[in-house]
């Protein structure tokens, strides 16, 4: 394959003012779909060959380019005379090939998990702006690099959550379970606690756990509980099932701040008391319920079923601190894009 492919760019009336840049193979389609909503002319620059091939098949009508080295990147920029803004999803070494262009505005928009997974450092100062979920990431960056210089922050929440928020209708007495399925004992505790309360269970089990799935369903059948168990093997479906549940049960391995964004009580299994104090980012620690035994879980679930959610306020405060809900509902991400488009 050639070092550069700009054949998908509009030739004669190229008015692209935005370009989405992806230096690795992880460009999420969510980003493309989101930006598409802004009704602007934009292109996508992909630096990974395989990812490029995949994306042009998936989006045959999009202006997707590929550039291998710095000179190719320069050619991609030169082919778009109206280009003003570049949106970056990851902070990788190759970004330097674009970040050197003074006439472009460089905006880091991150990924679904970049707020807590990124190691923020001085290299983020190369961007003009960082669009982030909430105050949490702003404070993390300020704490990490001290002198932020010119860097501007814009809170956009997690725009990909908007649909979940809109479709949300709290269902009572149902648990979404995301745990390490090698831990049979934990699964048993969760099963019996829910069973006793006649709670419905949405359980994620990867495909290779088919035997476990059958065993579990057999037990449930023998107890007349089979209708209350829904097993799914695709983690992407969490977003779908979360609308039907009233709380999430997880273990430390599967605990991810993103789960807080569903605005549901998050119940975490810990083996030892000290484990809860090791949870990172530590602002999560007061926003979670913890259990170790079946009885502890039973107590928490019973209280929640009785609408006694004692850490609700704390949890919502934390959630809002990480993912500003107002920004999500107000479409701040799209609004900012449109604003940039007008200012250009």
């Amino acid at each position, binding site marked *: 394959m050639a070092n550069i492919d700009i054949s998908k760019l509009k030739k004669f009336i190229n008015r692209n003012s935005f370009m989405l840049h992806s230096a690795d193979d992880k460009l999420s389609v969510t980003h493309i779909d989101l930006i598409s909503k802004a009704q602007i002319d934009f292109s996508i620059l992909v630096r990974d060959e395989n990812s490029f091939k995949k994306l042009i098949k998936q989006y045959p009508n999009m202006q997707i380019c590929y550039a291998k080295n710095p000179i190719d990147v320069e050619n991609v920029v030169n082919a778009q005379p109206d280009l003003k803004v570049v949106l970056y999803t990851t902070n990788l070494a190759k970004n330097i090939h674009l970040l050197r262009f*003074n006439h472009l505005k460089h905006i880091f928009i991150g990924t679904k998990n970049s707020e807590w997974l990124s190691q923020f*450092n001085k290299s983020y100062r*190369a961007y003009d702006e960082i669009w982030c979920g909430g105050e949490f990431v702003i404070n993390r960056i300020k704490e990490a690099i001290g*002198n932020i*210089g010119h860097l501007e922050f814009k809170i956009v929440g997690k725009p990909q959550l908007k649909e979940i928020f809109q479709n949300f209708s709290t269902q009572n007495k149902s648990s979404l379970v995301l745990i390490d399925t090698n831990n049979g004992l934990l699964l048993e505790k969760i099963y019996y606690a829910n069973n006793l309360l006649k709670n419905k269970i949405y359980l994620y089990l990867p495909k290779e756990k088919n035997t476990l799935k059958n065993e579990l369903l057999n037990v449930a059948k023998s107890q007349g509980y089979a209708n209350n168990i829904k097993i799914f093997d695709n983690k992407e479906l969490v977003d779908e099932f979360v609308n039907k549940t009233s709380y999430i049960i997880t273990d430390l391995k599967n605990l991810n701040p993103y789960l807080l964004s569903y605005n549901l009580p998050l119940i975490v299994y810990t083996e030892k008391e000290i484990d809860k104090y090791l949870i990172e980012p530590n602002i999560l620690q007061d926003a979670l319920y913890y259990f170790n035994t079946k009885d502890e879980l039973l107590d928490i679930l019973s209280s929640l079923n009785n609408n006694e959610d004692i850490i609700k306020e704390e949890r919502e405060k934390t959630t809002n601190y990480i993912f500003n809900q107002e920004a999500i509902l107000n479409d701040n991400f799209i609004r900012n894009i449109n604003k940039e488009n007008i200012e250009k």
Partner: protein
Amino acid sequence: MSKLTKLLNHPILFFEDAIKKKIKKVEPKKVEPKKPIPKKAEPKKAEPKKAEYQFNAFLSYTHLLHTGENVTGLSHLDLWIPVFQKANVNFVVLIRNYELFNMIKEKYPNLTIVYAQGVNDIKFYLDKMVFLKATFHPSNTGRNLHILMYNNLTHIFIGHGDSDKTASAHKYFRVYDENWVAGEAHIDRFRNERLDFRGLKQVKVGRPNLKETLLISQTPWQNRFSGNLNLLYLSTWEGVYEEQNYTSVYFMDNFFEEISKKDIFNLINIKLHPWVGKRDKKLLSTNQKLENILSNGNTAYKLYDKTTPVEELIKQSNIFICDISAVISESLAANAPIFVYIPKDKNIKLTKSKMSYEDYCYTFSDLEELNQKIEEVIINNNDYLKEKREKAMEYILGKNETLNDDFIKKLKEI
């Protein structure tokens, strides 16, 4: 003669021949020497991910000189290693290319050098350097990112020469804490970009590697080398794109043909950019062409290859002809007339400082203009840009800072 006639008339000859033939038949066939079976090419030894030379975790290293370049980083390190050595600070050179690591190891056997390929390899060494305070970056490469991850360190960009090219002042510089520049000119380049660089501290330190040249330049150029005129021609290459093609090599052969027959210069030194001919293959023969021309002239000459450092040639010369590149500011340190080729038909993208080339260099766009200016400045001894050139030496090179060893002082302050 048939066999029968032979037998009847010359029986002895007949039997002799018969024996000879028989012997011939039984003679062993010549055995063709076996072709040697070509040895299978040994698989290329995998490069290690990390390596060290004279690294001792118990020594408290405070300074880290990092290059993310491949072997082209050699010239950058050549520029700075002697200065760091002179400053007598406890420093480590961190290299990201194994070939360059070996080159530096051989060239500087007394240095502490570390080679680290990826993020984890860097972590391996940086975790051991607990006293480290600052990292110094001579160029902008993607790999710098792996060092910039260390928020506890002060990240300082030191560059590898002063240039007006647009690469000298762009947004990526904002990742560093400090930008150590030669003189005010470079700070003006940033100001003139009209961008927000408020997080980047600009520090004037002079050009330590030009100190010797600056000392030589205290003698007026006409009086150096016992009054001899030594011309140095430093070309650039033809660039990646035609619009960046600022080289004068296309017509300078005519100039040298003419000038070498006249009695103007005592010595002609020539060093072409090592990449001349990289894009335009017909330029590959330039050195040979110049050799042929100059060997037929009356003036002594020397053609240098890439191994000779430019600063050494500058010290030996007192008239300069350059193309647009960082060598102009290097030559400026010699405080002697500089003739700079400015192509007419090109849109030259430069970052602007307060002084342009026209202010302190004798610019030319063709041979005629060059000859005219040489006549005026050299033959008629009218160096009319002398005063402005001296101003430029302070403004661009930070002459005072250089002579005061400010770079070394700042290194020691860390």
